[in-house]
């Protein structure tokens, strides 16, 4: 993986312009090997985190974190894909590519949170779900499909944040939320730019162009009305300052929780459905 270039200063910023970055550079930043992962944030902003394990059907999945904790004394559940830092950890976490048991564990914990009226926070960071033979044999398509269907039925606030890679079905499998945010240097799309380039132009060296035309950055998604906001990162990206990145994330989560906490569950579910029902409808 090429080392990410640092974002360049391109002259005097216009309002909001500081959140617009080159798409290919953004993809590199989203995959930066030192970028904070789900547990880096959980350990900084969630108090007394208790990780829960297993889908009660087959096994556990290190690529998906699910657990209970407190955000400023508010009980919440946290779900998120987890990547590894060392070579051994990366394998153990399957590079953040969750398997069916990961999605089913996530659903189990989300439904547990719903039963007790606790809001749910999902942190998305995956190049895509695992799609090899083991995952196929245990129904990766069904697991992701069922999660999307069931997330509409959670009568508690659900907040999703893309904190790195928002890779396709693997991402949306925990992404059906009342509020959807993307951090500044993240991407969210239906296919990796490299694969898009290889398919469209039979040339994976055109990845840069693919990243551009696919409009996968946070500012693209915001402009298209697909997300609710962009969470800024410390200068140079989240990996430059974990503490500040975590604070900025926490600030937005608290704001969103405050907006959603007094809305009755039935109303939340209806609003969530309306949000996705009308999303990207041509005007």
């Amino acid at each position: 993986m090429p080392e990410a270039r640092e974002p360049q200063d391109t002259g005097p910023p216009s309002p909001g312009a500081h959140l617009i970055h080159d798409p290919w550079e953004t993809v590199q930043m989203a995959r930066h090997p030192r970028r904070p992962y789900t547990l880096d944030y959980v350990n900084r902003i969630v108090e007394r985190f208790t990780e829960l394990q297993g889908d009660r059907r087959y096994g556990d999945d290190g690529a998906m974190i699910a657990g209970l904790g407190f955000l400023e004394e508010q009980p919440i559940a946290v779900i998120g894909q987890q990547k590894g830092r060392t070579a051994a950890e990366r394998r153990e976490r399957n590079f953040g590519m969750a398997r069916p048991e990961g999605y089913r564990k996530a659903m189990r914990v989300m439904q547990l949170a719903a039963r007790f009226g606790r809001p749910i926070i999902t942190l998305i960071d995956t190049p895509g779900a695992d799609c090899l033979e083991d995952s196929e044999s245990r129904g990766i398509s069904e697991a992701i499909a069922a999660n999307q269907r069931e997330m509409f039925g959670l009568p508690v606030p659900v907040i999703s944040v893309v904190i790195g890679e928002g890779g396709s079905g693997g991402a949306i499998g925990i992404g059906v939320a009342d509020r959807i945010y993307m951090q500044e240097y993240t991407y969210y799309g239906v296919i990796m730019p490299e694969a898009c380039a290889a398919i469209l132009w039979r040339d994976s060296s055109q990845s840069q162009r693919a990243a551009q035309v696919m409009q996968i950055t946070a500012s693209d998604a915001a402009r298209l009305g697909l997300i609710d906001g962009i969470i800024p990162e410390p200068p140079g990206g989240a990996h430059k300052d974990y503490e500040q990145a975590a604070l900025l994330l926490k600030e937005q989560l608290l704001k969103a929780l405050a907006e959603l906490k007094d809305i009755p569950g039935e109303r939340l579910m209806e609003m969530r459905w309306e949000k996705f029902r009308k999303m990207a409808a041509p005007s």
Partner: protein
Amino acid sequence: MASPNDDIPPDLWEECKSCHQLLYAKELASELWVCSKCGHHMRLSVWQRLEITVDPGTFTETEGDLPLVDPLGFPDYMPKLVQARAKTHMNEAVLTGTARLHGHRIGLALMDLAFIGGSMGWVVGEKITRLMERCIAERRPAIVFCASGGARMQESLVALMQMPKTAGAVGRLGRAGLPYISVLTDPTYGGVTASYAFLGDVIIAEKGAAMGFAGPRVVEVTKMNLRPEVQTAEFQYRHGMIDLLVERAHLRELLADLLDWFQAGKG
């Protein structure tokens, strides 16, 4: 060198892509486009599928007036859409409507691979969702014949967001007390498998259909280590992901039995 087949008019004979047997086109229709020699199930256009599925003359198209959309202004996409329309005589990659099957009023969606690989963008997601909503409003069971390469790349995140929309719509149909039968035909991949295809109350697959979570082009370009036999209806069936693996010849009767079961006593 001339081959012995050179003088055969192509419209009279069709070659089986699996065993290369030449099949008489007129007989092929009565065999439901299944090779009489090897049993290979040929891919069908939605019009062929309609003809062998619903009660004659009962299909009425719905949402056929939805416009083509290009939400990202993706290079070369709109001309491609226009071309696909001209080629398939479909308004998008899925045809939706109401019909009767074995006398039962149903909502029906049929996907066609010939329209940009049967891929799902905003229009396909919207048509599937509106079909489910119509089924709820008119108390109709829903049947969807899937055939798709996956989500439509040219609509990127907009295409991805059709997955929760259609999955949610299927969930609402179920909560309204109506059945949804998903029929997986050759091939069904990607964003369609990970949304409405694998959410059927009953999931049926045609024998020999290719299917899987990763699209074939993605598997190819990322050089993914995946045995070809994994991405088949037979593999999914063996692992409990599909209720029934059927020959096309038995499909209509099976749907009739299921509709009878779901609808008995419901008027």
